[in-house]
């Protein structure tokens, strides 16, 4: 194994959190930072050529090549685990910018109660009324701790939305259930579609509080505090699973990378597959990786930051034998515990009597309501502890995926002339009511290394032991009931939501919001990293991203992962940045 020239900081993963950390460290200190990215470089030119549904939305060209590495899944420790052989329930990205290139741009702050969930649930419902296998935890940081970091992220990305709570004052038209913000969003909301307005009117008629989805896709041209200018969204509809061809969607490559490439202390190497964090005597000494030429090398560093997707943060710790693997039988160990996947079972298809022009849209264009988010609407008698948000999204529908939707029971066969006629008659008249729910953490849902299946290097795959519980089933059924009320108020034909799967399904796309496994907390007994995302056992190893979330909020995680990274960067610089360039 060849040893390379040492650097001060090596960051594994070139997505949102890795590049944000690199930007903080190189912008505020003189430390040298090297980012190792497994995938390829990205350029805006390739995104225009990538406006192709087949290659990008169906064949998933921007995702990690699952042939090289996947996970295995089992519903319980009693079942054999099998590999996820083709992508389904989640889609990990690859390449510079990571999944931050092909995300939708939906940018939430989490509820205040989410950060103190264990304490809050006990207070509200009483410990005796909680499932005995519940393992939710307080994060160790509060919403108020994160508020300035959220605001930094929102300004950097140019989030477009409508605040519902500024300094405790409720603002109609925004999300009145959210925590207090110090400021209105940097930009006003995106424009509304026909279907979105119908949802808004119906929800308001029922006394709910709909608001426009907060979006990292700019509603107007915007210059952020770093001096980076980007144009407003053109609603082309090639957003989810695509890179933005004009840079209207905030992506690491159009917000952070332009700042980084001009700095002499920054370097990024692509095609580098990190296999181990090397450590000795309670200290990380660097990382071992296979470079783009297939050569195994050792990169020494004073500090190591793991900034990959949840899956690989946890897997790299396990492969490197850092920390104690979690055991559901004893409840001991912390590495791998509290695996969660944002719940989203309830889905009601709605049918209009006119065309929606639904090919126009944007990844985070939509209307939502949080009236059943958190637990402010629940008394304990509903059988639901925590809910989620109901939405109507106008993501931009494309013909391969959207053809073949019609009211249930319209035709017998799903092929042939009758099917074709029904599909043609209903094409572009179909929308849906969605749901994103909190996923609580349970003792039996966790990650460890698979004893049998391996990646292309021969290293063990990560194994998920994950299933839904009665709570997610009830939560989904409750949300479906609200969706039915809204569909009726909209005056549209609709197909009632199917009862959600009792069993976790790896085939059906759900979201790429998989969290936990290297959770943050207040003591080495309950967490892998401290509240600064610094590893409890190795003080010069930092593990950033959604792997630190103790449980899954209803909102999408990117903005919170970024806010935690900004907060971690302050602590990182205080701890390692002796050669500080400037203060504050």
């Amino acid at each position, binding site marked *: 194994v060849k040893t390379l020239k040492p650097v001060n900081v090596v960051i594994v993963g070139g997505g949102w959190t890795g590049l944000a950390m690199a930007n903080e460290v190189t912008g505020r200190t003189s430390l040298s930072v090297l980012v190792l990215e497994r995938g390829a470089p990205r350029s805006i030119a390739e995104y225009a050529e990538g406006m192709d549904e087949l290659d990008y939305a169906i064949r998933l060209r921007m995702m990690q090549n699952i042939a090289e590495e996947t996970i295995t899944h089992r519903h319980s420790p009693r079942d054999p685990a099998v590999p996820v052989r083709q992508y389904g329930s989640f889609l990990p990205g690859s390449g510079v910018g990571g999944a931050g290139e092909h995300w939708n741009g939906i940018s939430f702050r989490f509820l205040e109660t989410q950060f103190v969930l264990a304490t809050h649930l006990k207070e509200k419902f009483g410990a005796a009324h909680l499932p005995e296998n519940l393992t939710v935890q307080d994060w160790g940081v509060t919403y108020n701790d994160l508020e300035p970091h959220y605001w930094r992220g929102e300004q950097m990305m140019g989030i477009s939305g409508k605040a519902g709570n500024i300094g405790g004052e409720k603002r109609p038209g925004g999300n009145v259930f959210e925590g207090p913000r110090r400021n209105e969003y940097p930009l006003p909301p995106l*424009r509304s579609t026909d279907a979105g307005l119908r949802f808004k009117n119906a929800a308001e008629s029922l006394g709910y509080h709909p608001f426009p989805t907060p979006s990292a896709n700019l509603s107007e041209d915007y210059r952020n505090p770093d001096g980076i200018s980007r144009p407003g969204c053109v609603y082309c509809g090639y957003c989810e699973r695509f890179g933005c061809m004009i840079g209207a969607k905030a992506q690491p490559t159009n917000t952070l990378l332009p700042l980084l490439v001009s700095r002499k202390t920054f370097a990024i190497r692509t095609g580098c597959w990190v296999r181990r964090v090397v450590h000795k005597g309670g200290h990380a000494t660097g990382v071992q990786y296979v470079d783009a030429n297939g050569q195994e090398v050792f990169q020494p560093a004073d500090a190591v930051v793991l900034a990959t997707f949840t899956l690989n943060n946890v897997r790299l710790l396990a492969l490197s034998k850092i920390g104690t693997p979690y055991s559901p039988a004893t409840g001991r160990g912390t590495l791998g515990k509290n695996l969660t996947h944002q719940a989203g079972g309830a889905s009601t298809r709605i049918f209009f009597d006119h065309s929606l022009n639904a090919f126009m849209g944007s990844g985070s264009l939509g209307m939502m309501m949080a009236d059943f988010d958190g637990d402010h609407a629940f008394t304990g008698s509903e059988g639901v502890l925590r809910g989620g948000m109901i939405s109507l999204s106008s993501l931009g529908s494309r013909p391969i995926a959207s053809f073949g939707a019609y009211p249930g029971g319209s035709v017998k066969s799903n092929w042939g002339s009758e099917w074709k006629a029904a599909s043609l008659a209903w094409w572009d008249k179909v929308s849906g009511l969605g749901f994103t729910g909190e996923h609580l953490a349970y003792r039996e849902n966790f990650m460890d290394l698979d004893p049998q299946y391996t990646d292309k290097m021969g290293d063990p795959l990560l194994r998920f032991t994950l299933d839904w519980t009665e709570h997610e089933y009830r939560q989904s059924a409750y949300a479906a009931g609200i969706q039915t009320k809204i569909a009726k108020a909209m005056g549209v034909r609709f197909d009632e939501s199917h009862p959600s799967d009792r069993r976790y399904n790896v085939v059906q796309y759900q979201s790429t919001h998989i969290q936990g496994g290297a959770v943050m907390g207040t003591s080495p007994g309950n967490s892998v990293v401290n509240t600064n995302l610094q590893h409890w056992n190795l003080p010069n190893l930092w593990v950033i991203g959604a792997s630190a979330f103790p449980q899954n909020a209803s909102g999408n995680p990117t903005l919170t992962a970024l806010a935690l990274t900004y907060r971690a960067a302050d602590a990182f610089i205080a701890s390692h940045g002796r050669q500080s360039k400037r203060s504050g």
Partner: protein
Amino acid sequence: MKRREFLILPASALGGTLLYTLAREPVRLQAQNGNVSIPLRFFSAAQGRVIAAACARIFPSDAAGPGAPEAGVVIYIDRQLAGPYGRDKYRYTKGPFVASTPEHGYQGKETPREIYRAGIDSLAGFADLTAEEQDNQLRSIEGSTFFQMLRAHTIEGMFCDPMHGGNAGLIGWQLIGFPGPQMSYRDEIDKYQGQSYRPKPVSLQDVVGHPVRGWEEEKDT
């Protein structure tokens, strides 16, 4: 080296379609009368006939408009199977292969190429049956991995960008009113509410101003 096979189709079905030859050279078919020979990359001519006939029953040409034959769906499928997708370059294919529950999806060892070969063998003589007999035979295999794949590929071939060999002459997009990749709807997004807006469809090549190659053209490594 495989002998070069051609699919013979009525030219009227495929006027002005851009295709790639085996040498990966673009060729524009202009013939309006008679038959055209389309070089196949994966299928034999006989296999191509079976798949073309099956696609024509899944997405028929009928009173509601053109279907799989006019869109060149069989050409699309031929190119997909010849490319990296057909040999499972982007699927996890390490063993052991064990049967599991439906929640774990397709767990088989067979690649799309192998699934098609076996599926076509099970449809011997299919192209010469009556439409009703063809429908009955397809109905008898509806639950198979092969049929589900063929049905999905037929829809893909109807509505993909024409660079992939299907949706010839944008006929699938014209059929439904999908405008293709457009550079902007900034001025249209909140106009036309309650009424349909149907700009003339464009292909990706039209939009970016030069040919774009699909993933299936990636060289095997």
